[in-house]
């Protein structure tokens, strides 16, 4: 008796109760069956505030098995608060293996980025989505946006891109860039930079999107066509960077700007920390890294 009373209350595997997980799995299956379609689900209160990834956490909790290896990234980094907390959360409530290595993970929960390393069959990418409705800022009525999806009326999406060009001379949407999935549903790829949009196309990995506050789940199954919307005379383009990563010298990757001092010093480094570390371990060296070694001596 004493042993029981002193023991901490234990959670069900992966925090959510089994009925909730079944409910979420049903929503996920439906989402996979209709690529890009937003499936409503009964989102639960999670032990974190809305906006911190409650949707992603619920999707992850529903698909986790004891043998899975979880990686969590926030802005591409494994060591930011959100990523560390969610990783620790699942380590605690599911007692499972966690990793920071993209290649070793079976489930990767992400906000903002798709890892630079190519994802392979069997891996699942779970996105935390704040606003799942791509038409929302142009059409505030949910009844109307649902009807527009149902009837495939997507002219409005191009109105947004038109406005971009009219105001800025080019399509200035750089994140949450709308895509058309499998030639049918227009989907918001969550706040990922448009740099990552091409990686969604024909991806070998399953991609699941969870929006906790908005209570929606949607999915892009493996090998699905994902096309970024554009105009014939203003084609879709991804961001380019003038310099390679200052630490690992990688080119054609998404870079973060880091301000170094108040005299205008700055560096551009890989947003994907795992990719950057891996490259450095393999002997790649950027300009700032070499400089650091010099001064250290």
């Amino acid at each position, binding site marked *: 008796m004493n042993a029981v009373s002193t023991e901490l209350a234990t959670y069900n595997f992966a925090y959510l109760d089994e009925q909730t997980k079944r409910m979420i799995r049903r929503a996920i299956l439906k989402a996979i069956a209709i690529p890009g379609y937003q499936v409503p689900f009964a989102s639960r209160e999670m032990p974190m505030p809305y906006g911190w990834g409650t949707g992603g956490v619920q999707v992850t909790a529903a698909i986790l098995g004891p043998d899975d290896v979880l990686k969590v990234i926030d802005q591409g980094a494994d060591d930011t608060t959100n990523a560390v907390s969610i990783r620790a959360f699942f380590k605690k409530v599911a007692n499972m293996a966690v990793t920071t290595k993209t290649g070793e993970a079976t489930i990767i929960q992400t906000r903002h980025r798709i890892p630079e390393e190519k994802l392979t069959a069997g891996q699942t990418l779970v996105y935390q989505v704040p606003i799942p409705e791509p038409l929302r800022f142009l059409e505030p009525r949910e009844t109307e946006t649902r009807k527009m999806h149902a009837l495939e009326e997507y002219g409005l999406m191009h*109105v947004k891109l038109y406005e971009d060009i*009219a105001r800025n001379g080019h399509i200035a949407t750089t994140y949450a860039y709308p895509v058309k999935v499998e030639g049918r549903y227009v989907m918001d790829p969550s706040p990922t930079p448009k740099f990552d949009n091409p990686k969604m196309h024909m991806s070998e990995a399953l991609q699941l999107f969870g929006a906790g506050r908005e209570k929606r789940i949607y999915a892009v199954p493996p090998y699905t066509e994902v096309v970024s919307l554009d105009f014939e005379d203003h084609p879709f383009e991804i961001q380019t960077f003038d310099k390679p990563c200052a630490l690992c010298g990688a080119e054609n990757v998404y870079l973060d700007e880091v301000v170094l001092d108040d005299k205008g010093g700055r560096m551009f480094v890989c947003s994907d920390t795992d990719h950057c570390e891996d490259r450095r371990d393999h002997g790649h060296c950027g300009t700032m890294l070499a400089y650091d070694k010099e001064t250290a001596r």
Partner: protein
Amino acid sequence: MTDAPLLKVRDVSKFYGARIGCRNVSFELWPGEVLAIVGESGSGKTTLLNCLATRLMPTSGTIEYRMRDGQMRDLAHMGEAERRFLMRTDWGFVHQNPADGLRMAVSAGANVGERLMAVGQRHYGNIRATAGDWLRRVEIEVDRIDDQPRAFSGGMRQRLQIARNLVTSPRLVFMDEPTGGLDVSVQARLLDLVRNLVHDLGLSAIIVTHDLAVARLLSHRMMVMKDGQVIEQGLTDRVLDDPREAYTQLLVSSILQV
């Protein structure tokens, strides 16, 4: 005018519970014809217009429309997708309040271009050129193309709304008090513009108005409504110059003479 009607309306009634919106309205509209529906507030003009434009479902009666392929189709039996497609290509709807018909948060060019993009145009340059052309036709300076309608005056907004509706060359335009809320000089210019556009494009139009002067200027034929029923219809000049029903006589004699 060709020999087949564009719109055939048979015994259309709309009840709001026990109240009557409109009752047993029948008429035919021919290509190129402008029909005015006049009457006092609450006489069922707007209810009838909304029923015709499928914005409301009539309680009974049928409305048939001649599609571009020449087929007569019953609007009530059309799928929603087809009906909405019809509404944004072959039809136009000009609201009394331009804010209801415009997207106030996007530029004038995008407002005009929206229908083009909705029917699949994907060339920015062409869309913008067409939008600019239409702004010119409704007498809005082309350098206002990137301004939002918020920055426009009431008259400009109404003209922009008309341009936005006409860009897909519709065959039928519904107008609900298009000159309501505009001052008289702006009204006159707008009426002039609408009359020219209707004439140049060979549009058919159904215009709801309580202003008999608007009906006189724009319409070929008119219907007078009272308490949800059509009490008199005929050629505009005939109805206005030789009104038969007592109510129409009252209406005509109520016009203020300056």
